[in-house]
Structures are given as structure tokens and as C-alpha cells.
């Protein structure tokens, strides 16, 4: 075959790929739109009078903390104000080098507490447990540094409730977050995990740990991320939930059944995507053993987090997420196309692997080839223009659907000005931002592939903490 013929074939392949990806996401979109329609009911349900029957399952909030001396007190104080019948808070100080423990000790009147050891999951050494004199429901576990996953495991060990809620120290919640996220557990006793969309807090007015007024961020980078989160995280999860194939529950806020997670072995400490890896593992273990279970998406806006405003931090974050995704999938590859794995192994896993894992590589190659084709004379200017417009256009369809979905469910961004900004951001997202993140993700994928080739199966330990929030 001559070079021009190869190029022609390649164009078809890439265009075909773009069509496939977007078709798949459109399907997820339709499913999500129907879920939202049904979830209108969930909102109606919340109109029932709220009284604490005293029979709601108690929840333990597990809050891993590392070097958070500036913000930890305010965060915990706001968590104490959550409206829920019965909950306790376990803060895990993961060997902070700064004054985190001191701040906690001072602000909450901590006293040492002889906690009888109960190690369900192995962790780094626990140096001591403290209890707050002022707030009986607050405990602090002080341990040697072991990373976020390790800290979470220590918190799980110390938790006394049947359900635990993994919360980032800088997650901004709303007063009824627990009430909303526990709903799936009330309605279906086979529920083992529930989580929702994380929303971007940049630009919102936050007061004492709660969102007082929703706003749009000032920087375009953050504005684009708002739209991106809606597109990637609203569909990507809501669409999969009815099929019980939701592979990610965000580490920023997720509710789990404690015994199930302990049985599964707790969080893995050797991956950067410990939140996703746990959930995929839960799917794998339950599906392959044919144990009934449900992992449910809760669409209510119940958790807000800060998005990176600098390109450098954003890049690190996205590359880390990409690596986490690949590590999570590979660690649980038994789920892929297994006869018993149902929608999780036959639809969600392959979709994530191809579209999220390998996708960026294809996207970048497609764009690169097409753009290089112009000066090299393989393609006419018209062809290049057509391809680019098609690729970008497909992207904007998805972004616009995301905004529509948001409008139909929780109109979080209230004012007309906000909407206008978001519509513009939607365009900007597809004119450069997506391509840039695809580039980073492609690079992360390549790096990961080569690293893995060198030491097959051995993943590097990541005891460090990340400055940027979880997905």
C-alpha cells in the first residue's frame, strides 16, 4: 500500500474511533436522562417530613489527614454539624510533619484514649488514639505515615458503625449529605457502596465549611472543569449505575459497608487510584462469587471540592488519575469479559479500558496525524478542517448534553449569567482543553505501560500524599 492509501485508511479509523466513543457516551447520556427523570422521584421523596426515627444506620466518617494544620479544624467543625441521627467522626493523622495533631488537640480538647486494639486490616503503626472531651463523637487516630489508603484502613479499623464514609479533609459537604448518601442503603439491603458527583467549589461562597452560595469560578481553567466534571463524572457514573456497573466512587465522599470492605481486604496501599481500585475490586469479588450487591450513584449535589487552578497542578492530577485508572483496571483484570461479570465486566470495564485508558492515545494520534497531514500533503485542507470540526463537534454535543442533564436535575448553577459562562466554557472545553488533557493522559498511559513492562505486576509504592483533590 502506498503512503497516501495508508493515510486514507487511517483517517477512517480515527474518525470511526471518534464516532464510537461519542456514540457510547451518548448511550450513557440517554440512560442518565432517564435516570434523572426517575430521580425526580428521589427529590419528591425528600419532601417527606424528616424526622430521625433513631433507626437509621449509624455512620462513621473516616477523615484521613496529612499536613492539614491550616484547615483541619474548620473542616471537622463543619462535619460535626452534619444533620444525621447517629454518626461519629474518626480523623486519622497520617504522621503529619506539621502541627495537624496539635491543632486538633487544642481545638477539640483531645485526651488520650486507651483503645483496645482491633486490627482488621494491617496498617502502619498506630501511635495513639484520642477522644475529644467536648464532642463525644469525635476520635483521632495518630499513626505513622503510610499514605492515604493506609490512613483510611486505620480509620476503618477504628470505626464502630456498620457503614463508613470516606471523606477528604478538604471536602465541603452540605448539612444533609449523610441523609442523602445513605438513602440507597435504606432502600436496598444489598447496597454495599454509594457515591455521588463531586462538584467544584471554586467560585462558591463557602462559610464555615458549608456552601453558602453557588457561583462559577473566576478562572477559565476552573470554569472549563465545571463543565468537564458534569460531562465526565455525571454521565460516566449516573449512566452506569442502573446496570450496577459503576466503577468509581470518589474518594472525596463515598459511603461503604464496613464489613464488606474489610472482607475485601481494605484499600490497597500500592496504587495511586485507591478509591477506584477498591470499587472495581468490590465488583470483581461480588460478581465472580455471584454475591448479590449494589453500588449506587446518588446524583444530589452533596460534596464539593477545589479544582486545580494552575495548569501544572492540573496536569499532575490528570496524569495521576490516568495512572490510577490503569492500575485499578489491571489489578482487577479478572473481571474483564468474565462469564459471570455481567455489565461490569462486559460493558463498563471494556469501555473504561478502551475509551478512558487507551482512548487518549488514539485521540492524540488521530489529531497529530491529521494535523501533520496538511503540511505533508497527505490530506487536503478541506479534509483536515472537516475532521477537526467533526471531532470537536462530537465533543460539544456531549458537553451540551451534560449541561442539559444538569438543568433537568439539580440546577445548581442558578443565575443566567452563570449559565452563559458555562455555555462558553463548553466551547472552550472542546477547543483545546480536551485535547490538552488527552495529551497528558496519553503520556501517562505510555509511561505506565513502559514502567509496567519493566516490572510486570509490580506497582510502585505511593506513600506520599497528593496536593490535589481526588476525582
Amino acid at each position, binding site marked *: 500500500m502506498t503512503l497516501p492509501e495508508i493515510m486514507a485508511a487511517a483517517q477512517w479509523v480515527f474518525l470511526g474511533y471518534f464516532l464510537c466513543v461519542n456514540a457510547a457516551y451518548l448511550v450513557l447520556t440517554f440512560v442518565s436522562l432517564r435516570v434523572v427523570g426517575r430521580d425526580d422521584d428521589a427529590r419528591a421523596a425528600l419532601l417527606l417530613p424528616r424526622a*430521625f426515627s433513631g433507626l437509621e444506620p449509624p455512620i462513621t466518617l473516616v477523615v484521613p489527614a496529612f499536613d492539614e494544620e491550616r484547615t483541619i479544624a474548620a473542616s471537622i467543625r463543619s462535619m460535626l*454539624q452534619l*444533620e444525621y441521627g447517629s454518626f461519629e467522626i474518626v480523623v486519622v493523622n497520617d504522621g503529619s510533619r506539621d502541627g495537624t495533631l496539635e491543632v486538633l488537640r487544642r481545638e477539640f480538647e483531645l485526651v488520650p484514649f486507651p483503645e483496645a486494639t482491633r486490627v482488621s486490616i494491617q496498617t502502619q503503626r498506630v501511635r495513639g488514639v484520642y477522644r475529644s472531651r467536648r464532642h463525644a463523637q469525635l476520635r483521632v487516630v495518630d499513626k505513622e505515615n503510610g499514605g492515604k489508603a493506609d490512613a483510611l484502613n486505620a480509620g476503618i479499623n477504628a470505626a464502630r458503625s456498620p457503614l463508613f464514609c470516606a471523606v477528604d479533609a478538604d471536602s465541603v459537604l452540605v448539612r444533609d449529605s449523610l441523609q442523602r448518601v445513605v438513602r440507597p442503603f435504606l432502600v436496598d439491603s444489598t447496597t454495599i457502596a454509594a457515591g455521588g458527583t463531586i462538584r467544584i467549589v471554586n467560585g462558591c461562597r463557602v462559610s*464555615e465549611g*458549608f456552601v453558602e452560595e453557588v457561583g462559577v469560578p473566576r478562572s477559565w481553567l476552573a470554569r472549563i472543569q465545571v463543565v468537564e466534571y458534569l460531562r465526565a463524572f455525571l454521565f460516566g457514573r449516573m449512566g452506569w449505575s442502573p446496570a450496577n456497573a459503576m466503577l468509581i466512587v470518589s474518594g472525596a465522599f463515598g459511603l461503604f459497608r464496613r464489613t464488606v470492605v474489610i472482607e475485601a481486604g481494605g484499600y490497597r496501599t500500592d496504587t495511586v487510584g485507591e478509591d477506584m481500585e477498591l470499587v472495581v475490586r468490590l465488583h470483581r469479588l461480588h460478581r465472580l462469587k455471584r454475591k448479590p450487591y449494589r453500588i449506587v450513584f446518588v446524583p444530589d449535589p452533596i460534596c464539593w471540592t477545589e479544582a486545580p487552578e494552575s495548569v501544572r497542578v492540573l496536569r499532575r492530577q490528570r496524569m495521576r488519575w490516568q495512572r490510577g485508572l490503569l492500575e485499578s483496571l489491571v489489578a482487577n483484570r479478572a473481571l474483564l469479559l468474565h462469564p459471570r461479570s455481567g455489565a461490569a465486566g462486559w460493558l463498563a470495564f471494556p469501555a473504561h479500558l478502551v475509551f478512558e485508558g487507551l482512548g487518549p492515545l488514539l485521540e492524540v494520534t488521530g489529531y497529530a496525524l491529521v494535523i501533520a497531514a496538511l503540511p505533508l500533503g497527505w490530506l487536503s485542507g478541506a479534509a483536515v478542517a472537516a475532521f477537526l470540526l467533526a471531532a470537536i463537534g462530537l465533543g460539544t454535543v456531549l458537553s451540551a448534553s451534560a449541561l442539559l442533564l444538569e438543568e433537568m436535575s439539580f440546577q445548581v448553577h442558578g443565575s443566567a449569567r452563570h449559565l452563559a459562562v458555562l455555555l462558553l466554557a463548553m466551547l472552550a472545553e472542546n477547543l483545546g482543553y480536551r485535547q490538552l488533557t488527552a495529551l497528558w493522559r496519553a503520556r501517562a498511559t505510555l509511561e505506565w505501560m513502559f514502567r509496567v513492562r519493566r516490572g510486570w505486576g509490580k506497582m510502585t509504592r505511593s506513600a506520599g500524599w497528593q496536593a490535589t483533590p481526588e476525582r
Partner: protein
Amino acid sequence: MARQEILIVEDDENVAQLLAFLFDREGFSPVVLRDGRAAEDHVRNAPPPAAAVLDVMLPYRDGFAVAAAIRADPRWGNVPVVMLTARSLGADVDRGIALGVNEYVLKPFQPHALAARVKALVRGPAAGKESLGLRRS
């Protein structure tokens, strides 16, 4: 004669407006706040009312914190305080009593009975303080 003020701190919009309507009808001048922090600011900056009706579950600071702020303030210290709540946990009641709360009314409540209680407290705070404890009005 100038109307006496009643401070109402309640975040449920319907209940807040109902209480305002109720006390206005009874001849008072209601001041309505929607969260605990605004209430604490008000205690610091404004002259004391004839009585205060506080919901327990409020944004930012709960009703107990507001009650404590009232009792701690030299000008507000003797203002009769009625707590309105949907929870009837024993610990809550104890906490209220310890703070010097005059009455504890459970939601759902009877509007006329609540108004009568408040009027009694306004007339004779000493008499009101003796009737500590849980009341179903």
C-alpha cells in the same frame, strides 16, 4: 405603647413565617433570623427582646449555642428562652436545662399554646423559670 420584640430563630421558612405571623397577631414585634450565626451577631449588637424562640437545628450554630450566647451576654442574660425542636432526646433536654432555657417545646407544636407560654414568660420571667422541663404544648 411600643410593641415588645420577640426574637425568632428558625431556618424552616414556613415555620419562621408562621411564628412571625403568630406573634405579630399577639401584639409583638417579631424579629426573624434564619441561622445561628446571624442570631449570635444579633445578640452581640442589638438590644434584648422580650423573649426568644429558638429552633435547635440551625445552620452554623445550633440553638444551644445561641441560648448559651444569650445567657452569657450581660444585657440579654434574663431574656426568657423557649427552644423549639423535633428531637426529644433526653440529653438535649438536660443540655437545655443546664443552659438555663425556660421552656422546651416539641415540634409539631400548637401555635396558641406556644404563644400563651411565651406571653406568660414575658409577663413574669420568674414564674416562667420555675417551670423548667419538657412540655407538649
